[in-house]
């Protein structure tokens, strides 16, 4: 048996976090599976649990000064029904797991779980999401790519909690999302891609490309993106091979029970090519 805490306020939760080596748990959709031991047996948690999913402070979606703030305990299904959440992000969320899981799983859980296959991550990387981390005394704001340090690894300190997810409220005229799963529903991602772009008069004003599930963490290269900003969409499409070579060293998938490294890599390049074609075709439709 392990202890479990169910604080009433965030302050109380941070105090427990400061005093106890504990494991924060919100929806538990991944943790319960990771720690499952078998029929009729409780899960095998080694540390006391700190329940945070119910805390009202972590449970809001609001717009403030050009940013959308999402509480980490917000459920995936709530994201789908909130008008402040962009349609392209909703598209990624809607393909995650199953309705029952989405009614339990939280956005903060998906981030802190730090799986390379985490389905909300490519969007959050592409959208320049930042995270607010608090302990009982201080808070710090950190870019998501600095927070997630490896598969299942984050920069969360033992006394900290993730308390806010902050996304710039920018509307990208061109959005593209592709999830490659083993099947259409209830499937872990073999590879995914979230592309966001702003195109003016045929020239790329802003461009974000994030690849999921094909490296230890989400792949996004600001250097490559910056080198392409200012180009015409036509030339981007024609420079496909060159762009692909730029990403080549970054995309390092693994062979596992769900797919092969070779497939993942090839499919990433196909998606990239498809995105560049899409960019060319759809730039004119957007005002």
């Amino acid at each position: 048996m392990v202890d479990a805490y169910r604080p009433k306020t965030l302050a109380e939760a941070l105090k427990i976090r400061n005093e106890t080596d504990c494991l924060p748990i919100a929806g538990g959709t991944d943790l319960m599976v990771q720690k499952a031991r078998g029929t009729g047996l409780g899960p095998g948690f080694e540390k006391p649990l700190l329940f945070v999913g119910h805390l009202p402070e972590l449970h809001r979606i609001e717009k403030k000064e050009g940013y959308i703030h999402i509480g980490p305990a917000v459920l995936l299904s709530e994201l789908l029904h909130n008008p402040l959440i962009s349609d392209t992000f909703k598209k990624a969320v809607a393909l995650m797991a199953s309705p029952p899981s989405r009614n339990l799983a939280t956005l903060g859980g998906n981030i802190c779980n730090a799986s390379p296959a985490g389905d909300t991550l490519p969007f959050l990387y592409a959208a320049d999401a930042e995270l607010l981390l608090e302990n009982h005394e201080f808070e710090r704001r950190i870019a998501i790519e600095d927070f997630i340090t490896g598969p299942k690894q984050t920069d969360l300190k033992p006394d900290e909690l993730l308390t806010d997810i902050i996304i710039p409220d920018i509307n990208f005229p061109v959005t593209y999302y592709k999830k490659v799963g083993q099947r259409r529903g209830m499937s872990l991602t073999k590879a995914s891609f979230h592309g966001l772009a702003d195109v003016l008069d045929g020239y790329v004003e802003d461009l974000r490309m994030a690849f999921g599930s094909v490296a230890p963490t989400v792949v996004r290269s600001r250097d490559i993106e910056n080198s392409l900003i200012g180009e015409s969409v036509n030339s981007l499409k024609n420079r496909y091979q060159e762009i692909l070579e730029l990403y080549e060293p970054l995309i390092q998938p693994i062979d596992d029970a769900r797919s092969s490294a070779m497939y993942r890599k090839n499919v990433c390049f196909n998606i990239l090519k498809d995105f560049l074609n899409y960019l060319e075709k759809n730039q004119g439709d957007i005002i």
Partner: protein
Amino acid sequence: MKMTISKSIKRTDAREKIRGEAQYIGDMAFDNPLYLKTVRSTRPHAKILDIRLPDLPENCFIIDKSHIPGKNRMRTVVSDHPILAEDEVLYIGQPILLVAGPSRELVYQISEKIRIDYEDLPAVFTLEESEKQNCVFTEYSFSKGEPDTAFAQAARIIEDEYRTGLQEHVYLEPQGMAAEVKDDTVFVYGSMQCPFYAEGALTEALGRPADKIRVIQTTTGGAFGGKEEFPSLTACHTAIAALATKHPVILIYDRDEDIICSTKRHPAIIRYKAGLDDNNRVTVLDMDLLYDAGAYTGLSPVVLQRGIFSATNVYNFHHLKVRGRNFQTHTVPSGAFRGFGAPQSVFGTEMLMHNIAITLGLDPLEFKMKHILKQGDPSCTGGKIHDKVILPELVERALDLSDYRQKIQKKKKFTGVGISLFLHGCGFTGNGEQTIKGKIILRKSKDRVVLKVSSVEMGQGADTTLRKIVAHTLDLPIEKVTCEIRDTGLVPDSGPTVASRTIMIVGGLLKTAADEMKSRWNDTEDFEISKVYHHPGFLTWDNDTFQGNAYPTYSWGVNVAEVAIDPVTYDIHIEKVTGVYDVGRAIDERALRGQMEGGIAQGAGWATLEVMKSKEGRLVQHNLTDYKVPTSMDVPEIICDFMDNPYEFGPFGAKCAGELPMTGAPPAVAAAISNALGIPLNEIPVTPEMLMELEKHED
């Protein structure tokens, strides 16, 4: 006027299942039960050198081979599987010991502390390696006509090889069993298809007569063949533990454990050599079927027999040579699975016919139609097809319903249409029915009737349809006809619930008994009628030479599958499957539709999504996160239709149904994918990964 038997009625088990009132094995309560956990081999092939046990808390027990009162072998066709390992293990997951204790937590902790020392022995992991080392369990062969002469005269010879993969049953309810001893009788309860198989295994393992054993089937959450022979093992485990500990014991598997250790569909390699004449007709076929039986023989000989007796599918090749072999590998034993060896060989033959046609630039359907069996033709084993074959009518209906001709002409790149023709031999293979001699009892008490059979309800609708046959015959409301629980102490052995035999064979006996009961209805208030199966006299079968009627009759089907391939990801979207079937006559159309839709989903899953590989004897996909079966989002639109072709010896003309759709969908789907990309396919599951490789190769 009496309503037709085919008109659907409400399923008799629906209400209690939907309301959560049905009692599955996990819902049963016992006084002071002990929980069991199985300690399994972690090595694919090894000698057990030493077993080190922790100190046992009070009321905890370790059960090993020394506690087995009778013979340490699980009785199947070939009883080579030890109930608990002796000094050697042959696969990862093989049961070695059982831990019993008053709580699951305690049992889990003890089993974690058990240490087993092994000496690894050389192991064989693949069919190819096993073939090289000639590790053959079983070998059969038969022939027809003069194949050697026909090959010598052939205008063209085509050789090809086909492969099918492992498949996991994924029944909704994992394996579970419980046992208790009362008044010197061992009671075993559990989720199973064949209570008398378990009883048979228990008589040998416990060394006690059948009248001291009662096997009682609890509500069973699906089976698909996965609960045919496997529960004999868990029945023995619980019974031995109950005798050794003098407590009721409960053994329920987790899903992961279930996947690791339970039987799977046999992976197969099928090699073909086809001889064609000047008119592009296949005149002679030489087939070599290799089935991976896994570590122990079990049911594999019979699975292989159905595989080879279904090997020519719906076609009449005048000259034929068939060889089938079961190979041993150090992997989890293969066993019964819906279709029982036929889906593998039918896939190979259907795809061979498809691929020969496209190689020759012919239309696959026209090519296939030139070869189909007709009434009066000999089957592959030389038994005369005595019933009317309405395959051309089934094909026409399927083409109309699916708009096949239009679709195949107007197809675009990355979309495809494929057609499969298929059959299923009804009832047991060879002389199985004559050996088993299924028996039923129909009992009238006042105005009610109880039917007593060992054929189980396992989600397929058997209780509804069997009751319906009796109620319809006697003109009684279905509520007046009930089924006795499947308790070997209360019902006769009507045979196992396998081989799509329940309606045709057992339902047939019930129909005969009900007819007789009707004629005597007013004689007395209470009486009983018993019937035993007799094989129709005009059928012939020689089990030594494999000549004659391997099956009394066949059910037939046609599938048209439509697919779209994503050009970016190579994801396969099966968009629609049209199925037209001759199952004689439908006993209940909705129940049958459930079978057909489920079978299509299962067949399409095996053909595309369901990748299961083993690496050095260890399953790579060993949970439902990695092993994918279709969800409702993956199941295509299904159009399903039946054409009546009543069978003289089936109840109301019914033949077999349950396994038929499992056989039909895979070749239709594979042919559609082949059509979409313009490439031949020789292997299932077809995955996006495979298609990407094939396309790159084509480029």
